[in-house]
């Protein structure tokens, strides 16, 4: 081995240069995060502040800055449709997130069993995401419509007692949204979990097998708990989808029958933009955010704390 090797000589860097390099290295992570920080501060929190301002104004057709205190909020709470849409969100959100998670995990686990044609099946599960609801909404409307779709088809095939008229039943219409939303999003949850499953160290699974755990137990007790960060991602994504469900409602029920399947996003949009009640729309957006805050913050807190201990 040649001792004249470049590396064998201790590299003594000039103090000043070394210092500045160090400084840069130390700041790099923050530097990299800086654009996102800026974006977050301006384009999210800045606009959020703006929206807050608007929610206290009497803005109607376009923003105005004449403040009116809590008037818009009072109006909002007095609004039947808002009450309906916020309860709907609760029902829809819970069901949608729960079903998507269960189905997503279930399918991911099945797909993880060294399935032939995995690629094709995975694409089938995922494809609903790809197709814009602008159009699929029509297809779903047909399928769910008792006079056109599933009910008629099964009736035609001889199962005459089959009845499925949720779409036109104001009591049930919200659940059709759940069906369509699950259809659209569960594939992504599946993909998210599949990616997570693929990162699990097989040795751990082996250890559990040796411990005598059956496949379901291994998944329940070992693998899924290891996927905590994935759950975290999935829950955030799903609740985000739930809260912002707009295309879906517009396409499938437009909030109907009546406004029985209205959701806050639709409420907010139609008031802020279509109906020229920007103040009210802003107020509803703030209420939505407050709701999210109440649910999300404890979750975020526990999740981020929990991970620090791992």
């Amino acid at each position: 081995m040649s001792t004249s090797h470049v590396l064998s000589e201790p590299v003594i860097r000039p103090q000043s240069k070394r210092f500045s390099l160090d400084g840069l290295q130390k700041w790099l992570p923050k530097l990299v995060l800086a654009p996102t920080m800026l974006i977050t501060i301006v384009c999210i929190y800045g606009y959020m502040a703006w929206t807050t301002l608007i929610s206290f104004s009497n803005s109607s057709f376009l923003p105005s800055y004449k403040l009116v205190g809590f008037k818009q909020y009072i109006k909002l709470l007095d609004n039947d449709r808002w009450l309906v849409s916020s309860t709907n969100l609760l029902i829809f959100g819970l069901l949608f997130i729960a079903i998507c998670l269960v189905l997503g995990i279930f399918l991911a686990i099945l797909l993880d069993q060294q399935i032939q044609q995995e690629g094709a099946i995975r694409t089938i599960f995922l494809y609903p995401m790809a197709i814009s609801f602008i159009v699929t909404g029509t297809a779903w409307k047909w399928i769910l419509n008792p006079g056109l779709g599933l009910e008629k088809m099964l009736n035609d095939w001889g199962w005459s007692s089959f009845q499925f008229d949720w779409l036109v039943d104001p009591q049930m219409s919200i659940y059709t949204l759940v069906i369509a939303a699950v259809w659209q999003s569960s594939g992504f949850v599946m993909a998210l979990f599949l990616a997570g499953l693929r990162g699990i160290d097989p040795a751990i699974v082996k250890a559990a097998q040796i411990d005598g755990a059956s496949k379901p137990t291994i998944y329940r007790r070992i693998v899924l708990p290891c996927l905590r960060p994935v759950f975290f991602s999935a829950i955030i994504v799903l609740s985000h989808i739930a809260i912002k469900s707009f295309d879906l409602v517009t396409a499938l029920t437009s909030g109907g029958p009546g406004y029985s399947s209205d959701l806050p996003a639709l409420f907010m949009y139609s008031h802020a933009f279509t109906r020229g009640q920007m103040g009210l729309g802003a107020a509803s957006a703030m209420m939505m955010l407050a709701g999210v805050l109440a649910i999300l913050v404890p979750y975020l807190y526990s999740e981020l704390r929990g991970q620090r201990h791992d």
Partner: protein
Amino acid sequence: MKKPLQPGRWLIYGILILFALIYLMPLIVMLLTSFKTSADIRSGNLMSLPTEWVFDGWIKAWGSACTGVNCDGIKGYFWNSMQMVIPAVLISTMMGAFNGYVLAKWRFRGSDLFFSLMLFGCFIPFQVILLPMAQSLGYVGLANTTAGLVTVHVIYGVAFTTMFFRNYYVSIPDELVKAAKLDGAGFFTIFFRILLPISKPIFMVCVIWQFTAIWNDFLFGVVYSAGDTQPMTVALNNLVNTSTGVKEYNVDMAAAILAALPTLLVYFFAGKYFVRGLTAGVVKG
């Protein structure tokens, strides 16, 4: 020696196929409809086969359907969408990857707080930011340009991509980063040489998410794009969402499937990166 196929495997395949069929149902309806004539659609059952298979819907959707005064179908919008989607997906994914990397492996005081703030921020309804964003874009001169649209997609996509990557990276052992640090690798080298190569699955998840979200986005597309750079979805919407006038469902369905093709391709090709167990056997314990 291959083990015999057990009944359990049959069950698994059975369930998978059943679900695949359920998932496929709307697509089947759409496909069948796209091959029907208008008259056929008006009269027939939605699950019934077309009395006569016609490709008019497809041809029209692709090349001659009107989406405004231009009656060239949706083909011209593909390129518009591509121009927007590709940079937006790449930039937001890369930013997300970097952010996730910092938030998972280079934590500093307040980084967790920032992450929470960012996540919370993405729950802001996009509708409320339309106007202030428009104003800001106008201010910086990006209003109604593709660059502006890309910017908007990046801004509102980056929270998610960051989350995906961060949550993926927290479960990758810190020892890898430590080893690379000692090997003399700096911030970027560690990222590009060590972490990125083992991020394929999450990268794909991210791309799937972003590509789909941006490709299918209508709201930002319609609001922030200029007239002749409108993305696909605006065209599709124009094709489909007429409130007055005659609806041609076969064209609509064909257009929708055509519009989804790039995304489907992404899914299919993304798929092979869902490889198994990349970190296995890296770190003892």
